[in-house]
C-alpha cells in the first residue's frame, strides 16, 4: 500500500537496498541513514544501491530529515496513506519496492538505532551475497533490554522450530530478493503482522520455508530507545506473542516433528573487545503489583486457559512474599503452552487470552530480573540458554495437549 513515493534520482534498479521503517522518527533517522550510506559505499561500492525510508506518513517531518541527510548513495522515500500505521505495513511496502527494483539483497535497520556503524551494513549484507537468504544480528544487549525476546520469542522459537536464533525480533535483518518475494506472496498475514509482529513473522517464515539462515556478529551492542516492560508494554506484546501463537497453528505439522535444537550458522566470527551497552532500568515493584492485580482481573479467565495443576502452582507463587519471589521456568513454559493452546482453540477470545498473559509475563520478567541481578552479560546468556533447555524439555507437554 504505497500511497506516496519520492524518488529524487529516478532510481529504477538496485542490487542492494537498505530499508529504514519509521513513524515520527525525524530526530533519529538521520544517524542510521548516514551510517547506511557509508556502509554501502565502503563495502558494496561496486553494487547499485539505494536507501529507502518506508514511512507511515509521519507528521514530524521524518521525510525531510531522511531526504536531507547527505549520503553518497541515492535515497527513496515511500509512505503509507495518512492514518495507516504499522511497522509490518512498512516492511510490506519495502518487500514490494525491493521486488520492483529487482534487489538481490535487502538490509533493514531500525530508525532509532544509535549504535549502528557502517560495518553493520557489511555484516547484514555480505552473507546474502554468499548464498544465505536470511541474516539476523548477534549483538550484545543489556540484560534487561529485550525481555520479550529473552522470555518468549527466543525460547519458544527454539523449542518449536529447533533453530537457535538468539535475536529473532532484533529489528535489524538482511534477506535475499528471493525471500522478499516469498514474504510478499505468503498468505499467512494478519493484523498483528502489520504491526510489531512482523519481525517474528519473518524469522518464523524463513525457518519454516527452509531458507538458509545465519547470525552475524555486530561490532557494537544494540543501543536504541529501550522500554521498561512494566510501564511501556503497549501493543507490542500482544502483536509479537499473537503472531507466534498464530504461526504455531500454521506450522503445527512442522514443529511437531522437531526434536531439540541446532545452532544457526554464524558469520563474522568474534566480537573482539565488547563495549558495554547502556543500562536499562526496570521498576520491579511495579511488575510485582501488576502480577498480583492479575489474580483479580483474570480470576475468571486464567482457570479457563491454564491447566489445573499449573494453576495450582500459580496460586502457590501468589503466596510467596516479594523478597523470595520466584516463577520456575518449567511452570512458565507450561503456562505459555497452555495459552498457545487456548489461542488455537478459542479464536473469538484471542485478544482476551493475550491480555490475560500480560500479568504472568511481567511476573516472569520480575523473576528474570531478580535472578540475573548480579550476573554479567555473558552469565545471563548462559542463564537464558538453560531456560531454553527447559522449554525444549517441556515440549512433550505441548505435544500431548495440542
Amino acid at each position, binding site marked *: 500500500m504505497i500511497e506516496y513515493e519520492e524518488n529524487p534520482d529516478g532510481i529504477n534498479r538496485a542490487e542492494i537496498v537498505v530499508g529504514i521503517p519509521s513513524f515520527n522518527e525525524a530526530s533519529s533517522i538521520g544517524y542510521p541513514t548516514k551510517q547506511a550510506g557509508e556502509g554501502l559505499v565502503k563495502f558494496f561500492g561496486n553494487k547499485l544501491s539505494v536507501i529507502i525510508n518506508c514511512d507511515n506518513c509521519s507528521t514530524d517531518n521524518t521525510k525531510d530529515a531522511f531526504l536531507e541527510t547527505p549520503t553518497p548513495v541515492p535515497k527513496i522515500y515511500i509512505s503509507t496513506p495518512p492514518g495507516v500505521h504499522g511497522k509490518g505495513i512498512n516492511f510490506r511496502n519495502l518487500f514490494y519496492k525491493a521486488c520492483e527494483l529487482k534487489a538481490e539483497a535487502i538490509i533493514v535497520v531500525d530508525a532509532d538505532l544509535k549504535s549502528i556503524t557502517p560495518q553493520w551494513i557489511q555484516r547484514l549484507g555480505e552473507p546474502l551475497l554468499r548464498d544465505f537468504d536470511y541474516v539476523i544480528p548477534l549483538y550484545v544487549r543489556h540484560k534487561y533490554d529485550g525481555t520479550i525476546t529473552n522470555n518468549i520469542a527466543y525460547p519458544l522459537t527454539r523449542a518449536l522450530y529447533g533453530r537457535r536464533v*538468539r535475536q529473532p525480533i532484533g529489528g535489524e535483518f538482511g534477506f535475499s530478493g528471493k525471500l522478499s518475494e516469498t514474504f510478499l506472496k505468503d498468505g499467512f498475514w494478519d493484523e498483528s503482522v502489520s504491526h510489531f509482529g512482523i519481525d517474528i513473522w519473518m524469522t518464523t517464515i524463513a525457518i519454516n520455508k527452509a531458507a538458509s539462515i545465519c547470525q552475524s556478529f555486530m561490532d557494537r551492542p544494540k543501543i536504541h530507545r529501550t522500554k521498561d516492560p512494566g510501564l511501556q508494554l503497549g501493543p507490542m506484546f500482544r502483536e509479537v506473542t499473537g503472531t507466534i501463537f498464530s504461526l504455531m497453528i500454521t506450522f503445527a505439522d512442522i514443529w511437531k516433528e522437531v526434536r531439540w535444537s541446532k*545452532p544457526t550458522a554464524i558469520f563474522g566470527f568474534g566480537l573482539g573487545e565488547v563495549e558495554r551497552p547502556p543500562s536499562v532500568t526496570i521498576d520491579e515493584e511495579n511488575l510485582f503489583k501488576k502480577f498480583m492485580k492479575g489474580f483479580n482481573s483474570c480470576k475468571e479467565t486464567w482457570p479457563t486457559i491454564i491447566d489445573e495443576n499449573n494453576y495450582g502452582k500459580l496460586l502457590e507463587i501468589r503466596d510467596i512474599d516479594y523478597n523470595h519471589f520466584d516463577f520456575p521456568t518449567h511452570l512458565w513454559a507450561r503456562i505459555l503452552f497452555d495459552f498457545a493452546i487456548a489461542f488455537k482453540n478459542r479464536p473469538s477470545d484471542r485478544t482476551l487470552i493475550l491480555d490475560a498473559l500480560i500479568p504472568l509475563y511481567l511476573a516472569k520478567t520480575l523473576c528474570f530480573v531478580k535472578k540475573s541481578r548480579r550476573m554479567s552479560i555473558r552469565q545471563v546468556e548462559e542463564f537464558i540458554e538453560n531456560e531454553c533447555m527447559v522449554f525444549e524439555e517441556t515440549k512433550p507437554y505441548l505435544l500431548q495437549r495440542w
Partner: protein
Amino acid sequence: MAKILIVDDEEHIRLLYSEELLEEGYEVCVTDTGYELIDRIEREKPDLVILDIKLPEYSGLDLLQDIRNKFYNLPVILSTAYDVFKEDLKSVAADYYVTKSFDLTELKKRIAMALETKTP
C-alpha cells in the same frame, strides 16, 4: 551405532571418554591434536565430534568454525576444563558445551540429544 570422534590432548580424558562411550555402544575414534582435523573428519566420517577447546597450538573454538564451514550439520560438543570459554560468543556455534568431569552423565545426555535432533 553412531561413531564419535574425540579430540583431546589429555590421554586420561581420551581413555575415560572412549571406555565409557564404547560401553554405551558407540563406535569411538580419537585424536590428540587439531592438526588436519578436517581431513580426519572427512576420512573417519563421525556422526558427532567431542572437541576440547584448549589444544596445543590450536584453539578448539577456531577448529569449531572450520568444522561449521565444512560440515555444517555435524554435531559438535565442546568439552573443556575451563568454564570461562563459555563467555566467548564463538562457543554458540557448538551444539552443546560441557565442562570436563569424571561423571559423564551430562556428556552422555548431550550426545544422545545431539544425535536425536530433528529440525526443519
